[in-house]
């Protein structure tokens, strides 16, 4: 087995653009679920709306990416309001199901063949990345020689992405130490109690949904910039589940939980992927093809991830940095 490749590849992913995407999505979920107790399973929907908004502003209307970002932000807020009005009064389990459903509605509508002229259908959209790449100050691969390397494009996305992560974490920290954050945490514990103290629970939940959704929108922008394309497959239901896994690994209701979670998650996932890939590759693989072929090897990381999520939730629900006593997830 090639341990060098294992380490290099895993580091590349652990700090790479994809980790940034999941980190931002999980920061949003941290606001929703970690602090407010809102089980939003539709984060992929927020990402998709924002990502497509940014891209279509340039592909359909020929506007700049900046305007695309602005429109994405506005649409995300509108989506949060539209989703919040019917769902925020619901029980936690209903909320989970309705938000999943909403994300699926968004995905099926955007990817519909009927709108494929404008939105690209199943294939998605490309051809918007030039202005972003033009701003790229890096023109050579960046990294530590012999350990890890990123292409200039990837590194440019990472730079922007991690800066966004820093900003998001800072905002989260500022908010959560304030009385506003205290109300959110109280709602997570018992919303009727908070109501009885004269707080407009509904308004706070809505604010939480919007802010977490906006972090999701940032994730959506980075998805588009990372791949230079957007397509429905980037925003499947599983994306939200992965983001939850990221959040829970790091620890819900911790400002830096999603950051640690994203890095660890992508490191482990890539280690598994490369390891099983290597074990099944070549003419005389370590694992015989009758037991596992290379397609099956690519499933191993998801199998382990499912197993890992279960075990994590059972044995260490507070994640790596969580405090067992102040644990967000043992609800009734």
């Amino acid at each position, binding site marked *: 087995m090639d341990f060098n490749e294992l380490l290099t590849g895993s580091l590349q992913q652990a700090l790479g653009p994809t980790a940034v995407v999941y980190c931002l999505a999980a920061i949003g979920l941290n606001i929703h679920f970690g602090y407010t107790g809102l*089980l939003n399973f539709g984060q992929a929907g927020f990402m998709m709306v924002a990502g497509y908004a940014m891209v279509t502003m340039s592909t359909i209307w020929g506007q700049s990416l900046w305007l695309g970002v602005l429109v994405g932000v506005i649409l995300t807020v509108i989506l949060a309001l539209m989703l919040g*009005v*019917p*769902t925020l*009064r*619901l*029980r*936690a*389990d*209903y909320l*989970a*199901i*309705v938000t*999943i*459903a*909403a994300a*699926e*509605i968004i995905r*099926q*509508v955007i990817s*519909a*063949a*009927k709108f494929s002229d404008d939105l690209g259908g199943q294939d998605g959209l490309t051809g918007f990345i030039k202005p972003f790449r033009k701003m790229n100050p890096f023109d050579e691969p960046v990294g530590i020689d012999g350990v890890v390397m990123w292409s200039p494009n990837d590194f440019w996305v990472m730079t922007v992405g991690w800066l966004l992560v820093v900003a998001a974490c800072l905002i989260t920290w500022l908010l959560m130490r304030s009385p506003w954050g205290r109300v959110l945490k109280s709602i997570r514990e018992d919303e*009727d109690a908070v109501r009885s103290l004269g707080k407009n629970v509904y308004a706070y939940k809505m604010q939480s949904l919007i802010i977490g959704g906006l972090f999701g929108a940032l994730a959506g922008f980075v998805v588009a910039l990372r791949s230079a394309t957007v397509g429905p497959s980037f925003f499947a239901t*599983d994306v939200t*589940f992965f983001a*939850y*896994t990221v959040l*829970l690994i790091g620890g819900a209701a911790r400002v830096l939980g999603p950051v640690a979670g994203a890095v660890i998650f992508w490191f482990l996932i890539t280690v598994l992927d490369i390891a099983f890939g290597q074990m099944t590759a070549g003419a005389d693989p370590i694992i015989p093809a009758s037991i596992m072929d290379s397609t*099956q090897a690519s*499933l191993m990381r*998801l*199998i382990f*991830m*499912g*197993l*890992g*999520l*279960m*075990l*994590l*939730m*059972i044995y260490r*629900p507070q994640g790596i940095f969580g405090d067992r006593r102040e644990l967000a*997830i*043992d*609800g*009734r």
Partner: protein
Amino acid sequence: MAIALRRGATATTALVLLGAVLAALLTVMAGSPAHAAETRCALVKPTDDDTISILGRICDRREKPPVAVPGVRVTVEDEAGEELGEATSSEDGTFVIDLPGTSIEHLGKSYTVVLDESTLPEGTKPEITSRTIDINLDNDQTVIFPIGDAGPAKPSKFTEALQLMVGGLVFSVLLAMAALGLSMIFGTTGLTNFAHGELITFGALVAFFIDRLPGRIEVGGTEITVIVGVLGAFLVGGVFGWLNDTALWRPLRRRGTGLVAMMIVSIGLSLFLRNIYQYFAGAQTRNYSQYGAVEPWEIGDILLTPKELTVILLGVAVLVLTTSLLQFTRLGKATRAVADNPGLASATGINVERVIGTVWIGGAALAALAGALLGVTQGFDFQLGFRILLLVFAATVLGGLGTIWGAIVGAFVIGLFTELSTLFVDPEFKFVGALLLLIVILLIRPQGLLGKAQRIG
């Protein structure tokens, strides 16, 4: 002890009964396809080979019985309008167009079959000149072009609605079976089980496995391999449910794991199982060895295949049986008591864990049965259950999570709505419609259609 024995006996009787009904109804599937008279307008027998053919016939319905219209040119076009094949209707009004290439290439595509109007006899007009078909299976596809006076350009909305209703009913009963299990498990344990879809897929896989065992099973000359497969799915599905509960959920309940945590565990389980399924079964869509291509009966203007009728009847029988079990047996009453108030139920001497165990077995068996029958009606892949999970959830939530009648009512609302909505919107939006319906209903009644509001304070 005596009580325990009696309870056991009731459950066994129920199981045997269910099995009997299942077997009886499934035999209908194998037997008696309709025989159209040769002199009249005949249906083409589907071929059982690897390619997909489009079969059809053209009938003049001004005559009673309808007569065949020969010599009409028919073409098949893909979405881009490219012509893929053509044929001319023969003496008996039928035509066969073989699609080029293997069946896999056509899966998921949508083709339009077009009548060349200029080749029609004088004074006749087709009621429709083109039909669009979605290829979801590697079966042959049957299309029918009724010809009459220059009348309505399309079959009436009413006919269309009736035809969609058939599909809707099939889907509804299967959805109801799956939803019943989900709802009962939620009712007794509070678990929102995101891995319920995998219980459905499991059934389809078990039936497939039995089907693929070497040899065939016959009774009195009729092959019943798939029937045995479906029965097997029901039974093994129950065992799988028991395993789920014993190995995972019961220990978690003992530890006092929170409901939200359990919900997330179930997401992990869903991911795990789904990929295990793909590992062993691959990603392609599969069909069973029987009932892939059956000749439909014609009832008035509506086409109904024997297997659709069987699934509807069987499904209704299973639902009636299950609800009667819940309504009238001791165990059923205990189940409802636990769903209503677990603490009180256990205080009155009901063995709550036992009830939950039974619910898991029954719920998973129903889900597996639904999965196997979905496999029979439309084929399956490793994502079968995951794909319809949202609709199953929609059905349960619509009816109010945890209520038994709610799940069934919800399933029929969702099942019929998805199909009938295609009368007015593009079929690609039919799931969207159902999910929107869910959101709208929850907006009006946050506790579901039949659920009750929760107590505060």
